[in-house]
């Protein structure tokens, strides 16, 4: 009897300690066996003068829907076209689609109106035989991409109940101007835009909970201080400037607290405060370095880096600093945690046996630990989750210079987002 118990214990221990390949484990994605929704994009209507914009909108929509992992995009040739008087797919076409096994038709009309564009977007469900989504969007001439992104997000949320990420942005640091500055880009890498002009060293941009502000650390006044930049007004305010390091101010999901790290006490400790800088509370108390906080989606816990055990590992504590427990046990260097907005996984940087940095993820319950990025002679750093808990962005120097990449949480779909010859690092995915 004892022997059997021992064997069971051993098996259980082996299962707990196993490092899985990404393919074996699903992280925040749909279960294996989930059927993608077959969808066809019907050619948009638009006058010949807007043909280029029409093509752009179709292309962006297709890329967004494919990227979402929820849809299979069906080729146009599979469904015989048939349009009504208003230019929209008619009942015949919807029926043709149903016969071909297509579940959804997506179609839009692009109409110039003065200096603006109007995108009327529609989706038809073949099972119901009718239109189920109708959204009218108005934007300026630069907004065609964003309107297509919005259409994609509508489709994702209607047909899956999940939030789409096509309208989100990624903040990052680039030295293309000669100095490190913060830039924003669309989640697909388009529309790069500089938002700081500190001409100093900048580190660690982070989004506020409502995507209205960005916090970052800058040496512009001779010391690494934390600044808040209001994206609406452009106003920048120095918030935390203790002697020593002031790093990575992160808002709780509801925006009621901000956590950050400072070495004002002689070593790095984590504090929380109100977003206006008042009500400062220290929540770590030891001579080790505690830094790089990330909030759980409930706002009740914080994961962070600590070397209290001798080398840096990821720990979790309650938002008031109590109940500290260690999450990571593989390897001797685990830092830069990012807590999934779905709550169940924490991504972080792990150092492998070849002393290379990779992106890893552990389940919050401590039961699973995976490598999200592959082995190889390069470094991957700075993971940041998208709001859907299914996608991440990170930095990698696998092509030489640091570039920003995105990847699905199941390890598939690696794409490079930056390619401008500069060094691009520290991506942060907007929460909206």
């Amino acid at each position, binding site marked *: 009897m004892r022997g059997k118990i021992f064997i069971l214990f051993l098996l259980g221990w082996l299962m707990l300690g196993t490092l899985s390949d990404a393919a074996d484990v699903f992280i925040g994605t749909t279960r294996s066996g989930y059927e993608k929704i077959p969808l066809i994009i019907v050619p948009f209507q638009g006058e010949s003068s807007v043909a280029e914009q029409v093509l752009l909108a179709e292309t962006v929509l297709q890329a967004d829907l494919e990227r979402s992992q929820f849809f299979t995009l069906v080729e146009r040739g599979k469904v015989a076209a048939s349009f009504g008087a208003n230019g929209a797919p008619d009942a015949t076409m919807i029926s043709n689609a149903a016969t071909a096994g297509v579940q959804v038709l997506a179609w839009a009309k692009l109409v110039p109106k003065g200096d603006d564009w109007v995108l009327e977007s529609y989706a038809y469900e073949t099972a119901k035989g009718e239109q189920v989504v109708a959204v009218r969007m108005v934007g300026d001439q630069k907004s065609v991409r964003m309107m297509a992104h919005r259409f994609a997000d509508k489709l994702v949320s209607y047909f899956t109940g999940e939030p789409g990420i096509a309208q989100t942005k990624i903040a990052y640091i680039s030295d293309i101007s000669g100095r490190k500055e913060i830039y924003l880009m669309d989640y697909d890498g388009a529309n790069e835009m500089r938002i700081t002009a500190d001409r100093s*060293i900048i580190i660690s941009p982070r989004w506020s909970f409502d995507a209205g502000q960005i916090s970052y650390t800058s040496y512009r006044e001779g010391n690494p201080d934390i600044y808040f930049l209001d994206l609406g007004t452009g106003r920048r305010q120095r918030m935390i400037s203790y002697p020593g390091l002031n790093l990575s101010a992160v808002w709780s999901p509801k925006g009621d607290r901000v956590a950050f790290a400072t070495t004002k006490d002689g070593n790095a400790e984590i504090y929380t405060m109100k977003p206006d800088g008042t009500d400062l509370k220290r929540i770590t108390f030891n001579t080790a370095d505690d830094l*790089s906080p990330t909030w759980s989606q409930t706002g009740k816990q914080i994961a962070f880096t600590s070397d209290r055990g001798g080398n840096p590992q990821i720990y979790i504590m309650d938002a008031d600093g109590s109940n500290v427990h260690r999450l990571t046990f593989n390897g001797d260097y685990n830092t830069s945690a990012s807590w999934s907005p779905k709550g169940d996984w924490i991504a972080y940087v792990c150092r492998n046996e070849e002393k290379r940095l990779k992106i890893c993820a552990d389940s919050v319950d401590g039961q699973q630990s995976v490598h999200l990025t592959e082995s190889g002679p390069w470094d991957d750093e700075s993971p940041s989750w998208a709001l859907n808990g299914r996608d991440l962005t990170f930095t990698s120097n696998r092509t030489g210079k640091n570039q920003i990449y995105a990847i699905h949480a199941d390890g598939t779909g690696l794409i490079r987002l930056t390619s401008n010859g500069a060094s691009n690092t520290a991506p942060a995915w907007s929460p909206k």
Partner: protein
Amino acid sequence: MRRVSSFAALFIFLSGLVLMGCPKKAPSVEGSAGLSKEKSESTNRGDQSGSSDTKPLPPPPKEEKLPPLTKEEPAPEERASGPAGGEAATSLQDIFFDFDQWVIRPESRKVLEADAQWLAAHPQAKIQIEGHCDERGTEEYNLALGERRAKSVMNFLVNLGISPSRLSFISYGEEKPFCNEHSEDCYQKNRRAHFVIVPK
């Protein structure tokens, strides 16, 4: 005249140090010790009669000895020199660290002793100690590591008798590398504590 020529020699020598400040090779600790040794030789030139100047020397004035380094008085040559910043920053030798470490290596202790001697000889000088890391490792943790390196050096200097009020530190982590190659050589050059004179 002798004093001016020894000042000129000091200035020429230190200018040479400035030009040598961006080496292609990793500066070895032995090299640093060697430089320190040469420095002390040149400051003693005022005491030697064997000058390399080709101009005929006027009758030498009374020889001046340097004040003992333990006294908080500026050396006469230094008072006559230009702004302390340029020379001083190159007189203070950098301290190098092992990977993932902030402990002062045994061979670095002599370098720090020499740095402390310079500081003792220039009591008005305030310095900032910069902590740096190589590019490996993550940015925020490297900032903390850089600070630990700077503070290690600061504590060592304080233990050698330098007043803490003269010393400050800052960490740049991996943000301000001295070289950019992806080589062990360059990584070692970047894992350093570096001194900067703080303007008054």
